[in-house]
């Protein structure tokens, strides 16, 4: 709501406050000032002149040479407009005057235009920031005094305070409403509107009987005055300026008056041309489904039986509270006007407005509740202005229905208010006087207040609402700062701590954290646990953001692409976020064994889309650090596996049963197994599904060369995605067994190297298993250190070398022990089709 300062001043005296003081008082007590506009600031030396003569420019078709006078002195200038004639009063920016510029005011000088010296210019409304009109220059009212400074006549440079109206304060959509609030804040009087009594002659008969449906009273009151002998024409400049300051376009005096009164009182009005109504009676009713109306904006609207309409004898003439009909609107030839002001049901107006996507100044106000006492006042005010500005004559009035009941009284415990606000000194009397400033009637009985809000405050229905009024007017700044006396035991839960550790683990490996927008288009790469399931959006922001991301891999690849585009030799990034799959998606099979913290439901138990957290990694190109790159050393899938193993090791339970090894051993069932797999877009020989405790929880792989090329990425590109819910869920609730210390073995250790030769198809995991089995209880630690292929091994064979550290808790080991272990490893190897390398 835009509030010109002088208009506000009409209703409440704020002349003693500076603009800053006023704005501060408003902002701190419930009127949020969005901006203070100063339209026309910088204007000086613009004077009113009469056009004495004009003629065409001798050397330019579109220019006129004009003589103007202030009554004594004539001035010649050149003008490009054509909307004026001899005798018109115009706004002349003289030589030396300034007009508002985009940044700085512009100073006018005498300037030669094609051989004729122009001494200043004639201004348009837009040039002086007095409105949008730029079709021609300002032509002022006929009786405007000559030689006057325009700033004396029009609000040039006047502050216009724009207030952001809060959703529950429909009464603030008016100058009067803002003035009431300012008066309450400053504890001052409101200078209300006084209007004439309605004429005794009865006007147009109106039938409201059909608007009550169940609990809904569609129209509680309908006021309509008939004004005759109206001359439709342009409004006087002061009125056009008021509308312009508030951002409303001037149309003609009749429409402008209804808009002016709406801005002033908050009561939307509509003006019908009486001669275009098929009378005499008007009926307010619900539309029949399928009825249509062409509204003022020349759109044909198809109506439902939930829309309220005003109909004459033959047809619908207005979409109630939203917009009037086109064929009963006031035109240049109108002489008889029916001014209508009514009280409509807010919810009905809101629904109609929303359904038709038709928001008007009227619907905006009605849907936020208009003061039910205002219709007769506003109609009378508009009728008076029609008399004053359009030569009208008030002839008759209709007032149908009755004013809606005022908001019910609320009983308030002043002691509770004081406690609730932490303002223990705020007694009942003070609270009552604060509420009275908001025009509430308040009866005080001890600490009990009985509060009757005024007709325009439908939002005050509960003690908490009144507590806010009291706090607001008393001043939020006077509320002290205390800390809650609440016994609390807070902190991060175990899974939350683990999630932070997990992030640290990935960071330590050199990956930067990314946060993406979780939307994908149709052609996203699959990540963990593939499925076609997508959570589609009803109103996506873009075609390539039509669904929620079923994987983070796609987003990370786009990040990698962006960095490749920046000429980086290598990029390593990760994201820890949710992925989204429809309820019942294949991914749930991977989650079911791990608690149900990932499962979210509607209050009635209906599952929402499945949205587990995943960790996704992507690395491309060379390893780099600050100031160096490792030529030829590229990121590979093992780098990602190392990170994922570390992540699992960081959160998986320790092997509490292992009482012998000093090393922290994981529960052996918490090892991330890798099963070779093939996926679209991935390298067929470098992709593995990740399996934890028997279920697939992730994928790791290198992008297929063709896929990398399609995405314009420099190879290699490796990605991984891992469900982290299984890692975190096991930390919930159950009492974890603390890891127990063991006695460190003091006997010397012995180191034995073994090399096992086998067909390529035998996995390392199997070979390591054989070595571990062979070493048995003597094994303390095992390290893989070499993979070898060569002619002497034979085609398709490879050798894997491992170093075993052997130790016994009760004796020193001998060469016999070493030989025994090697022999045993040999036997275990044979079981899986491998042999000791000679």
């Amino acid at each position: 709501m835009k509030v010109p300062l002088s208009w506000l001043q009409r209703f409440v005296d704020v002349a003693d406050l500076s603009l800053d003081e006023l704005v501060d008082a408003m902002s701190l007590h419930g009127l949020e000032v969005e901006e203070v506009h100063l339209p026309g600031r910088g204007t000086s030396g613009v004077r009113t002149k009469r056009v004495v003569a004009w003629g065409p420019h001798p050397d330019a078709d579109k220019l006129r040479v004009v003589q103007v006078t202030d009554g004594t002195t004539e001035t010649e200038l050149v003008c490009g407009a054509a909307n004026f004639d001899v005798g018109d009063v115009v706004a002349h920016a003289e030589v030396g005057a300034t007009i508002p510029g985009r940044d700085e005011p512009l100073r006018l000088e005498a300037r030669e235009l094609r051989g004729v010296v122009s001494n200043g210019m004639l201004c348009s409304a837009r040039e002086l920031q007095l409105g949008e009109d730029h079709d021609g220059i300002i032509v002022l009212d006929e009786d405007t005094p000559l030689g006057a400074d325009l700033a004396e006549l029009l609000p040039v440079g006047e502050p216009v305070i724009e207030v952001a109206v809060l959703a529950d304060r429909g009464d603030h959509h008016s100058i009067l409403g803002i003035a009431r609030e300012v008066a309450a804040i400053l504890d001052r009087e409101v200078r209300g509107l006084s209007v004439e009594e309605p004429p005794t002659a009865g006007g147009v008969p109106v039938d409201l009987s059909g608007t009550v449906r169940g609990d809904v009273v569609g129209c509680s009151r309908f006021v309509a005055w008939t004004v005759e002998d109206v001359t439709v024409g342009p409004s006087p400049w002061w009125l056009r300026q008021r509308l312009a300051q508030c951002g409303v376009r001037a149309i003609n005096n009749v429409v402008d008056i209804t808009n002016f009164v709406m801005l002033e009182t908050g009561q939307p009005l509509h003006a019908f041309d009486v001669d275009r109504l098929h009378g005499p009676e008007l009926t307010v009713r619900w539309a029949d489904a399928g009825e249509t109306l062409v509204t003022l904006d020349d759109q044909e609207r198809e109506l439902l039986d939930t829309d309220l309409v005003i109909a004459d004898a033959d047809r619908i003439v207005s979409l109630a509270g939203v917009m009037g009909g086109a064929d009963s609107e006031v035109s240049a030839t109108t002489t008889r006007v029916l001014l209508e002001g009514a009280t409509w049901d807010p919810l009905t107006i809101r629904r109609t407005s929303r359904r038709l996507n038709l928001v008007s100044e009227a619907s905006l106000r009605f849907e936020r509740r208009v003061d039910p006492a205002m219709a007769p006042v506003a109609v009378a005010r508009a009728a008076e202005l029609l008399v004053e500005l359009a030569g009208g004559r008030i002839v008759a009035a209709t007032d149908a229905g009755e004013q809606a009941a005022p908001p019910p009284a609320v009983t308030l415990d002043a002691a509770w208010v004081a406690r609730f606000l932490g303002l223990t000194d705020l007694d009942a009397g003070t609270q009552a006087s604060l509420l009275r400033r908001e025009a509430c009637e308040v009866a005080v009985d001890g600490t009990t207040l009985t509060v009757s809000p005024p007709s325009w405050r439908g939002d005050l229905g509960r003690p908490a609402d009144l507590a806010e009024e009291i706090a607001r007017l008393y001043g939020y700044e006077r509320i002290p700062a205390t800390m809650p006396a609440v016994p609390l035991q807070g902190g991060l839960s175990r899974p939350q701590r683990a999630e932070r550790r997990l992030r640290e683990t990935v960071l330590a490996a050199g990956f930067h954290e990314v946060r993406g927008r979780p939307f994908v288009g149709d052609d996203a790469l699959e990540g963990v646990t593939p499925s076609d399931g997508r959570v589609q959006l009803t109103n996506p922001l873009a075609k390539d953001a039509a669904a929620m991301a079923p994987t983070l891999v796609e987003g990370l690849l786009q990040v990698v692409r962006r960095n490749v585009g920046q000429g980086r030799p290598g990029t390593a990034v990760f994201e820890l976020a949710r992925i989204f799959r429809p309820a019942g998606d294949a991914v749930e099979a991977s989650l079911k064994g791990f608690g149900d913290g990932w499962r979210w439901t509607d209050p009635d138990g209906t599952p929402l889309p499945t949205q587990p957290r995943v960790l996704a990694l992507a690395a491309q190109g060379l390893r780099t650090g600050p100031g160096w790159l490792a030529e030829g050393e590229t990121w590979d899938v093992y780098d990602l596996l190392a990170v994922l193993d570390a992540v699992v090791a960081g959160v998986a339970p320790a092997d509490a049963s292992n009482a012998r090894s000093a090393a922290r051993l994981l529960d052996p069932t918490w090892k991330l197994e890798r099963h070779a797999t093939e996926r679209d877009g991935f390298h067929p020989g470098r992709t593995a599904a990740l399996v934890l405790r028997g279920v697939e929880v992730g994928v790791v792989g290198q992008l297929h060369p063709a896929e990398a090329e399609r995405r314009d990425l420099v190879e290699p590109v490796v990605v991984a995605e891992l469900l982290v819910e299984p890692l975190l869920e096991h930390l919930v609730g159950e009492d974890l067994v603390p890891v127990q210390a063991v006695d460190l073995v003091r006997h010397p250790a012995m180191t034995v190297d073994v090399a096992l030769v086998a067909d390529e198809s035998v996995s390392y995991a199997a070979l390591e298993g054989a070595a571990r089995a062979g070493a048995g209880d003597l094994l303390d630690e095992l390290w893989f250190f070499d993979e070898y292929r060569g002619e002497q091994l034979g085609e398709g064979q490879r050798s894997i070398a491992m170093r075993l550290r052997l130790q016994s808790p009760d004796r020193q080991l001998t060469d016999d022990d070493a030989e025994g272990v090697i022999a045993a490893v040999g036997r275990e190897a044979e079981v899986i089709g491998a042999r000791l390398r000679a």
Partner: protein
Amino acid sequence: MADLAAVQEAALAALREASTVGELDEARVRFTGKRSELVAAQGEMRDLSPDERKAQGQAINAFKRAFEEAYETRRDALAAAELEDRLRGERLDLSLPPRRVPPGRPHLLTQVLDEIVDVFVGLGYRVAEGPEVESATYNFDLMNIPPDHPARQEMDTIYADVEGPSDVVLRTHTSPVQARVMTTTAPPIAVVVPGRVFRADAVDATHSPVFHQVEGLLVDEGVTMADLRGTLLTFARAMFGPERQIRLRPSMFPFTEPSAEVDVSCGFCSGQGEACRVCSGTGWIEILGSGMVDPAVLSACGIDPDRYSGFAFGVGAERVAMLRHGVTDIREFFEGDVRFLARF
């Protein structure tokens, strides 16, 4: 009988001439090993007369002493020289960059979110979580935003195409987690909720369809608006500095009554006036929305509003990050440019 004196001279010469520890040890074997003349001389001792044996014994001992001494000296010198050579050869230019990939950086928003959360964890709050694709019942209805409430439209909701008993939305705020907590937990309740939220906003420098909030909720008997002010003052000082003040301005949120926007005093300009890019000279920066939990929200979530009261607040993480770190384009948070990621 060997001429020990000549042998000794030859032996000492050999030691002197040895240029490596290896050659030195060869000389040692040659002159004192099993097949050396020295050992032969020792073997011949028993054939000598007592006098000769004594003299020869002394000569042999003298030979051994002289040899050992010369050997030790020479060996120390050679070993020292070899070590010196090795050390010289192993010299490194330690100003070269170490070729290890250094740790990555946590996202700026992660840092800000964790910092905010940790302030409240320090005050005794727990951290609550909820889904991002959320039931409209939690996101709106239980937050006192019925279907026709203007706030429901003003929130520019993105809807998921999911059949169900109520609409499914991308949560427009972290407040639905308030409802999830209150419907499942009895007071006292003190939680913070960091999380990602969504609005149907086109992407530009100041708008993002995705952003992050931290919601706070405290409910118990006798919680007052002064407690809200004290808590937010503590938070503002922890985040922005011990000298900061806060200012509460009346506002309106459907889920709180009274409601307040909260400004923190500007620490970027120290009141230097209109030139301040952060506060534009007002001296105050809007940082969060807050209020006393609306009784309708408490009731809807099964908590008796006559017995309990509480406060709630919501902080925008991007806003805090932009203010503190001078980020001017909100898109940077979500584009993943490593130059941005690695800077913070």
